[in-house]
């Protein structure tokens, strides 16, 4: 193990470490803590210059104000409308593409695979004008499905990389054995491979959920009204209206951050397994 386990250090060293970790964490999360505290600070505190002290009272009404005076709830619902179909769609597509690229040998296999990988890295701006145009001409501009459709297509790049590598690590003898038995290819996919892919599906769902929920660029390019804007774009336009009302900005920020944070804490193991794929081999 590297570094040397702290259990082998002197008692003073161990004590120092046990204090140093929470202190470092506190400093690391300072911006987050600041915003979290500001979100429950009464507006009167800010007016009197009490920016860092203890709030004079806990003003949960800031959150109520955000919900009552802004379309925040609608924004958050819109985000779910875009995010959930994207997770389902991208996973469905990439289970199939990953299976095709992992199991079959055919001449252009690696070329197709690397096309998915490379496409996943390109700057969004090179896609922006044509994708916006396509979405407009399909009559899907400013709709949740127009946005979700693009996300499904783009995410299938990363998901294919992930799924293909995952299926490759499965025991290939299972598939061989089934073929000898004369099992049809789609049945192999559905009854043998898919059940084994559960961990990969779980990991990718959490990851794609977070990516899409947090997307801002495509939200601004493909939507433009509060009826369809996801929470990131909504928060940005609210920020323009709430000049210097930091208690509201903070409350809105915390609300927008909540779903992915909850997702992360509930599915932590899967989330990290997804992110670190490839880093361990």
């Amino acid at each position: 193990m590297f570094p040397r386990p702290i259990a082998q250090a002197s008692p003073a060293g161990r004590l120092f470490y046990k204090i140093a970790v929470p202190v470092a964490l506190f400093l690391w999360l300072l911006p987050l803590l600041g915003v979290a505290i500001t979100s429950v600070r009464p507006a009167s505190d800010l007016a009197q210059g009490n920016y860092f002290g203890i709030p004079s009272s806990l003003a949960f009404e800031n959150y109520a104000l955000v919900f009552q005076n802004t379309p925040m709830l609608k924004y958050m619902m819109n985000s779910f409308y875009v995010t959930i179909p994207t997770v389902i769609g991208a996973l469905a597509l990439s289970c199939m593409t990953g299976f095709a690229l992992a199991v079959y040998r055919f001449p252009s296999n690696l070329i197709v695979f690397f096309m998915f990988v490379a496409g996943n890295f390109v700057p969004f701006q090179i896609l922006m004008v044509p994708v916006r145009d396509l979405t407009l001409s399909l009559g899907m501009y400013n709709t949740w499905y127009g946005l979700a459709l693009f996300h499904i297509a783009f995410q299938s790049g990363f998901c294919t990389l992930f799924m293909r590598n995952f299926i490759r690590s499965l025991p290939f003898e299972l598939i061989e054995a089934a073929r000898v038995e004369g099992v049809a290819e789609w049945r192999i996919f559905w009854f043998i491979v898919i059940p084994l892919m559960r961990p990969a599906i779980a990991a990718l769902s959490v990851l794609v959920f977070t990516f899409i929920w947090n997307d801002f660029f495509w939200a601004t390019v493909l939507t433009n009204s509060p009826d369809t804007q996801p929470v990131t774009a909504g928060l940005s336009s609210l920020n323009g209206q709430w000049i210097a009302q930091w208690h509201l900005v903070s409350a809105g920020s915390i609300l927008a951050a909540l779903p992915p944070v909850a997702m992360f804490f509930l599915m932590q193991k899967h989330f990290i397994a997804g992110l670190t794929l490839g880093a361990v081999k």
Partner: protein
Amino acid sequence: MSANWKANQRRLAPWLFLAPGLIMFLIYVIIPIFQSMWLSFYDWDGLGAKTWLGLENYRELVDDDAFYTSLKNNVIWLLLYMISVPAGLLIAIFLNQTIGGMRLYKSLFFFPFVISQVVVGLMFSWFYAPNFGLFYNLIEWATGTGIAILAEDKYVTYGIIAAGLWPQIAYVMILYLTGLNNVAPDQVEAARLDGARGWKMLWYVILPQLRPATFIAVVVTVIGALRSFDLVSIMTDGGPYGSSRVLSFYMYEQALSEYGYRMGYGAAIAVVLFAIMMVFISGFIWKMWRDETER
């Protein structure tokens, strides 16, 4: 089922499985790349007819000061973003211990990455805010005069990069934590018996084993740096006076914002950004290709 299908099943099956994903990816990702390249030779407002300009858009770019500012900022982003690789490694080494509650500590350290960049941008704007921001006050306390980071063209890009580093370091940290978990303990013990300690141990024994983690960390950091858009848009909207623009933001501004709908010119900027990224992407793909075909 016909005999024909039975005979060809194994040859056709991969393409049937690939079709839906591949078609979607071609329509929304691969073809638009070429459409943008083609569009960069035109003048187009997004609605009317397109006018062929040839290389005119690129000629204009060469004389465009805003383009150079963006390009320079992109280079600064790229260089400074690299800090997240050693910084992430350092935090990972610091946290790679087993004391009570360590799992929770690790996930809290990872927190910034889970949050949307829009929210990160707002947090740091508050942090930097003139007169009452924590950072402003700290500078004021240390030097006597506060600096409004986001309003000074000398500092603004650095201020935004610092905000971007926060989640990026968290990402790299988690990559290295997983990597450190998989370092072969017998090699570390053997090196210890040979007297390797501290930096020497890290450099000669640990880092070579962390190579895959380092590769992924560098890839995601380079891509993250060149994709920076959200933070610039949220924190400064490119200002003051366009001094914090990066190529991705400048492209958006030219093609879609109130400055007018110059789709062709925007596409030309996007092509330049794409060309820069392609240098790195080709490198990554080349390495992955080699690993793949060697196996």
